[in-house]
């Protein structure tokens, strides 16, 4: 499984440390909220709304440099839109890795 990294954020920030701190701060605030929204919709089996939550999370997946995981998230979003939870475990493993990484920043 891929490991989250700050490559994109570093590239984005260049030598602007202030901007890097700002982006990480937003990541720390937005990620848990978006994950929670996803979990709530999945628990309610509201798959269309869960797909929307996954769609939003996809951006964070790519921001954390998880290129292959992005495609898993995309496919999972499509599955949810078709009322299937195939790839749920794979996607949730990605979320877990992201959350563990972000909490350490």
């Amino acid at each position, binding site marked *: 499984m891929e490991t989250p990294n700050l490559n*994109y954020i570093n*590239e*984005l920030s260049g030598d*602007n440390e202030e*901007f890097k701190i*700002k*982006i990480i701060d*937003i*990541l720390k*605030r*937005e990620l848990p909220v978006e994950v929670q929204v996803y979990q709530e919709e999945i628990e309610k089996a509201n798959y269309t709304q869960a797909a*929307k939550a996954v*769609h*939003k999370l*996809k*951006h*964070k997946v*790519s*921001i954390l440099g998880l290129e292959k995981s992005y*495609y898993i998230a*995309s496919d999972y979003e499509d599955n949810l839109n078709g009322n299937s939870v195939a790839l749920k475990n794979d996607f949730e493993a990605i979320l877990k890795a992201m959350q563990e990484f972000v909490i350490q920043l």
Partner: protein
Amino acid sequence: MNCIIIDDEEMARAIMIQFIANYTDIEVVADFSNAIEAIKFLNQNEVDLIFLDIHMPNFTGFDFIQTIKNPPHIILVTSDRNFAIEAFEYECIVDYLVKPITKDRFIKAVQKAIFMKTNASSKEVNPKGEDNVNEFYINIDRRLIKIEMASVNIVEAKGDYIHIKTDGKNYIVHSTLKKIEDKLPKDLFLKVHRSFIINTKKIIDIEDNSVLIAKDVIPVSRANRPELMKRLNLL
């Protein structure tokens, strides 16, 4: 030139603001987490360019475009590659950026918007701007592929899909013949049958109710034949 940003993700807005500040001369006059607030702003203010997310709760980017009168130039910013074809049906949309945005791609989109803004006067003479558009994009397996219009030989409708045959390659795209017909220049392309649009410059020969283009024999319906004959430079 000024702009606003509409995206429900704070992260996306922050990144765009940073790119705009670092690499362009554009001024960000406001940013919004929802389209409704942006509409209120636009009722009181004029802007030259909008960076717009498609997927937003309650009110999508496309809802937004359809709501505002005389939309300015818009650069769509989205994690979804699936709306590319729909996006380019709107005259106001100058580019389509897929998240995560890269610096080079962002700059290119902005340059395109600036170019279109500075050429706005010539556009007014030709509102559809069709003469300036030589290509279109199709979405295949999450990739946006550019197709030069002049390279298209025929387009065939196949159920919910269209089959685009070009000089080099063939593509199957989820779309309708009507949608692509509206995109293609009328002086070059002609619908000769309910399932076929042809590039009239690529005709090799015509026989009764069919035309030969490359290796394909295309049926010509009786109703469309007179228009086809009109286009020919007959000796």
